[in-house]
């Protein structure tokens, strides 16, 4: 009964394929092909295909200046800023599962992250990542300036970059409030107090008292830009919610959109800059 089977097995053993043939079979097989559309990228064609056919890699051109891919030239700070942004998005989403932006819970949710929540370390990853991103963005800008890479045709991308810098700082700033501890509240208090002094728009700003209609002041402590920012006269629960929404929805979406433009412009403006 088993004789036939035995024979068959022996036969298969005698004809077993070499490792190379297995590799070949896999990388030329239908599944591999359907996913990657090309073979292992060790030939020029496959390398081109690797970049072209991959949704993540197609940010890149197929080929780049030899001088531009050097670490000592780019410092990789733009890339790291993006990586940190991604990292912050992922950890931030995880944190949103645990965090409730209300005066009642916000602080103790953070305590819980420190004390009890499994992998509460994501809060550290998020906070330190944010600090690192601020520094990375500065250094990226520093590098771009030092290599004169804002010069034509890249002027507008530099402008976008400046906006992204501001957004990065705002992201960090709005996030600073969320732990709802003394450090957070007072840093935001100090940081937002200046809004009261915005010329014309803040009630303690120059010119605000000139905005009157029929003797009624238009800009008061309850109707100025500071109030709009905080949702009240002081940092309070309304501020927490405002900053939460800004931090989690509004600014990241804006930044992501501008980043797409930024990257796209890098490609369209001739890739990583180099001497002409």
């Amino acid at each position, binding site marked *: 009964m088993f004789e036939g089977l035995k024979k068959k097995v022996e036969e298969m053993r005698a004809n077993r394929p070499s490792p190379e043939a297995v590799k070949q079979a896999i990388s030329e097989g239908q599944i591999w092909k359907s996913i990657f559309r090309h073979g292992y*990228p060790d030939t020029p064609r496959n*390398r*081109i295909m*690797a970049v072209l056919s991959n949704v993540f*890699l197609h940010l*890149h051109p197929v*080929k*780049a200046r*030899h*001088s*531009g*891919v050097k*670490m*000592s030239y780019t*410092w990789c700070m733009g*890339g790291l800023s993006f990586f940190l942004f991604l*990292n912050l998005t992922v950890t931030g989403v995880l944190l949103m599962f645990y965090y409730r932006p209300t005066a009642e819970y916000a602080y103790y949710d953070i305590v819980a992250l420190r004390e009890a929540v499994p992998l509460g*370390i994501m809060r*550290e*990853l998020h906070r*330190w*990542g944010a*600090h*690192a991103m*601020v520094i990375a963005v*500065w*250094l990226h800008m*520093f590098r771009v*300036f*030092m*290599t*004169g890479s*804002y*010069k034509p045709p890249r*002027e507008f991308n*530099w402008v976008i970059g*400046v906006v992204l*810098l501001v957004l990065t*700082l705002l992201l*960090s*700033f709005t996030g600073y409030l969320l*732990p709802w501890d*003394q*450090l957070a509240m*007072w*840093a935001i208090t*100090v*940081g937002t*107090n*200046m809004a009261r*002094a915005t010329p014309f728009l803040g009630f*303690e*700003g*120059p010119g605000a*008292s000139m905005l009157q209609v029929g003797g009624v002041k238009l800009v008061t402590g309850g109707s100025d830009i500071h109030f709009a920012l905080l949702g009240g006269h*002081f940092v309070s629960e309304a501020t927490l919610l405002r900053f939460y929404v800004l931090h989690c929805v509004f600014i990241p979406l804006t930044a992501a959109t501008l980043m797409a433009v930024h990257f796209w412009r890098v490609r369209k403006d001739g890739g990583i*800059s*180099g*001497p*002409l």
Partner: protein
Amino acid sequence: MHFLIHFINALFNPVTYFSASVIGFGAMIHYREKWTEPQFALRILIGVLAVLGLSMFNDHFREISTKPDNVPIFLMVFSVGFFTWLSFRQAVVNDRRLAQGQPPVEKETSDKKVYVWPDLVYVEFIATIVAGVVLMVWSLALHAPLEQAATPAWTPNPSKAPWYFLGLQEMLVYYDPWLAGVVFPSLIIVGLMAIPYIDKNPKGAGYYTFNERKLAIVPFLFGFLILWVTLIFLGTFLRGPGWNFFGPFEDWDPHKVVVLNNINLSEYFWVKFLGMGLPPNPLLRELPGFSLLAFYFIGLPPLLTKKSNFLMGLLERLGVARYAVLMFLALSMAALPIKMVLRWAFNLKYIVSIPEVFFNI
């Protein structure tokens, strides 16, 4: 030892700190050939680390510098230092080549193209991993700070803004919030955006150089390194309770008392100089201040341009509009150090002071 600590603490006051950083900045520009030598740089690094290590023996310094939220400042200081060195190093090398008529290093290979896979992708991937490792180690080693639950019932002393805004908070010492907190930051953003449109210098695109772009690099670096980074450092480590200045090894005593007897320009002019009372009309009272400002922003640029061949050349190269914007931005930037000096030298509080409408400069 005790004496040394006292000496260092005494040395760290706003005047010496700021003057020293400006002088240091000048020296950095001037002696770039020297300190960009790797050997020399290594020695500086070792020296800095040694001083830092020794300082850690001081309880107060250790307490302040190991606060979790202050660690990024060290990261910033060291990375900015390193990358400044790196860029200057490459700039110096390129400048030497340019002086000898050779193209910059980048030019040699810029015409060649390499496949993005694997060269760039691989490098990016490794950089990502390394950054991930650094972030994880950092997160494992240091807990994110968490203080007491928020309450407006008591104010921590000092109350500080997030560290990246400490430069602005430092400006608040010299300017009112509407300037330091609103106008200057806006000018910084606008100024940064304006750079590519003002800088008409066609040279130095895509490679490191200093000699070809002196005019662009010096003000930019002055703004970034002096008015931003060192002020953050100052705000973090040297500003204590009551926003008073403390030496690096000095205890932050909340009861420290500091002389504060600053006087407005109008008082200088009307009371001290003319020996009469302040005019009741605020506009008249502040006339000297307004005149001074008008002179600074409107009178000074043409005067300087006339006197200086260099500026004249610049005007010709840039055209009036660009030149005017440039001058305005440059003078605005210079306003901070100028006000600092006026404060230290003459205890000048405000140049223009109309508190009735919150208009103080």
